[in-house]
């Protein structure tokens, strides 16, 4: 390894690694039993400590792409992936291709490194504390005081500590929708993931809760790199540093958010952003 590390290609890898935490390369994805692929040759970098927004009309494949990035698709057998999804590894210089992972244990570790927040809040049927501690226990943490420390830190980091500190042992089902969603974020944050994938995290919430979640997401990018699927154009322009526009399984355009929203290269992107379709 040490001699190889000096070769030019590895130096280059190491440099891009600084910038990209994940890189989707030429990804074609077919759902089980589907005659045609739902994603065609997607290329998309996820920049380190930045927010990347995926926008596009319903059915364009943005959630499909997001769900490929932690291989949650694999819960349902019969998928076909082609191409590569590279994830940087903190211990190695080279990025690893997560599509090569086969064993359940490797997939579990992947999902702990690449967390996911869903459209609807999904509190587990347990107490607030247990919800956040759950992932930590799954990852093998045993020490009670360590777990408690991480839970408190995650709740504080997810701006929900003040509302929950007096009711940690109450059922998480009693929280409001917005609180539940922040709890789900805290749950993911507690695992200290490298990447967090948000699949329309505010589409089921009222404007005030949405504001709180957006604020939280902007805060979180100091710690993790973020990809967010959203239907809400304002949300994408407010929150993200980079934006990818997708349409019927193709990635039409990817660029800095300001560029996409002010001066997109593609006519299709412009039409969508100005609300001419979608």
């Amino acid at each position: 390894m040490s001699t190889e590390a000096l070769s030019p290609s590895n130096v280059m890898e190491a440099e891009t690694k600084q910038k990209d935490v994940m890189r989707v390369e030429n990804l074609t994805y077919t759902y089980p039993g589907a005659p045609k692929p739902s994603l065609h040759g997607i290329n998309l970098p996820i920049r380190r400590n930045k927010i990347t927004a995926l926008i596009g009309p319903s059915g364009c494949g943005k959630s499909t792409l997001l769900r490929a990035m932690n291989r949650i698709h694999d819960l349902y057998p019969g998928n076909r992936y082609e191409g590569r999804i590279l994830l940087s590894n903190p211990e190695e210089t080279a990025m690893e291709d997560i599509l090569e992972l086969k064993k359940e244990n490797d997939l579990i570790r992947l999902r702990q490194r690449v967390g996911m927040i869903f459209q609807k809040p999904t509190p587990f049927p347990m107490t607030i504390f247990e919800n956040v501690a759950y992932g930590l226990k799954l990852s093998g943490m045993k020490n009670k005081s360590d777990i408690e420390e991480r839970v408190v830190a995650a709740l504080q980091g997810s701006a929900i500590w003040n509302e929950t500190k007096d009711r940690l042992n109450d059922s998480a089902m009693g929280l409001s929708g917005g609180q539940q969603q922040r709890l789900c974020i805290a749950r993911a944050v507690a695992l200290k993931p490298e990447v967090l994938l948000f699949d329309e995290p505010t589409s089921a919430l009222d404007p005030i809760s949405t504001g709180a979640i957006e604020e939280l997401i902007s805060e979180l990018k100091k710690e993790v790199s973020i990809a967010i699927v959203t239907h809400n154009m304002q949300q994408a322009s407010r929150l993200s540093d980079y934006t990818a526009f997708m349409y019927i399984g193709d990635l039409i355009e990817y660029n800095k958010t300001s560029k996409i929203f002010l001066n997109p290269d593609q006519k299709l992107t412009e039409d969508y952003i100005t609300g001419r379709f979608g």
Partner: protein
Amino acid sequence: MGGKLFRNVSFLSATLSFFILLGIFVILFHYAQDAMHTFGWDFLRIDQWEPGEDDEGGVFGGLIPIAGTLLTTLIAMVIAVPLSMGIAIFLTEIAHKNLVKPVGVAIELLAAIPSIIYGMWGLFYFAPIIQHTFGGNGVGLLTAGIVLAIMIIPFMAAITRDAMNTTPPVLKESAYAMGATTFEVVKDIVMPYAKGGIIGSIILALGRALGETMAVAFLIGSVFKFPSKITDPTTSIPVLLANNFSEAQDLELSSMYLLALLLFVVSFIIISLAKFYFLGRGVK
């Protein structure tokens, strides 16, 4: 006008079930008076069922059929609960979708087989196997319990499966997204989420096991004797009632009403306990 009529009819239908329940209780209670006065609480301790000379008087006690009922039900539940859970978990979380449908249909069909068929199959095919493996006469507690288990498994498995299927996929996905294994998702998400339905299925199966007559009549041996081994033949409340009803008179008949009342009350208590105790607490 139509609204009022509909309201009254539905009100009547709803209250009717309550009155039927009450009516059955009152009749059982009324006919059981004779035995209650004669034996009192000793009825629960007497292990005899001896009509007197000329069908006058006699000594009747409920200990053996009550024990037989509870023991066969216990054996059945001990076998059926884990197996049904296993079937339901397999069908909802593990099995390939091409397998889910045929196995699901097979289970529903099994639940629809009349109990006498289970009884015959158990007596002619299953009892000799038990005899060969565990000794005894073939018929007895164990055989009845196992066949009872086989009868209630499809029932329990089908309801549990339906309850587990109501777990929102996104909830399971978010547990997988935290790095849970299938086992952990079942244990921590699906089971707690489906708890109400699972307990409901156990209660219904329990009720069926307690009252099952035909299959148990074939398999328990119908001997009025306290079992000392698990393979011993004995009797149960419904079996005793079915076997003796045509000939019983006076005190014996009244004792049988008392047994029926006990079965009624025991079933009622078990089901209410299970319902209120388990469903009334914990996270929903």
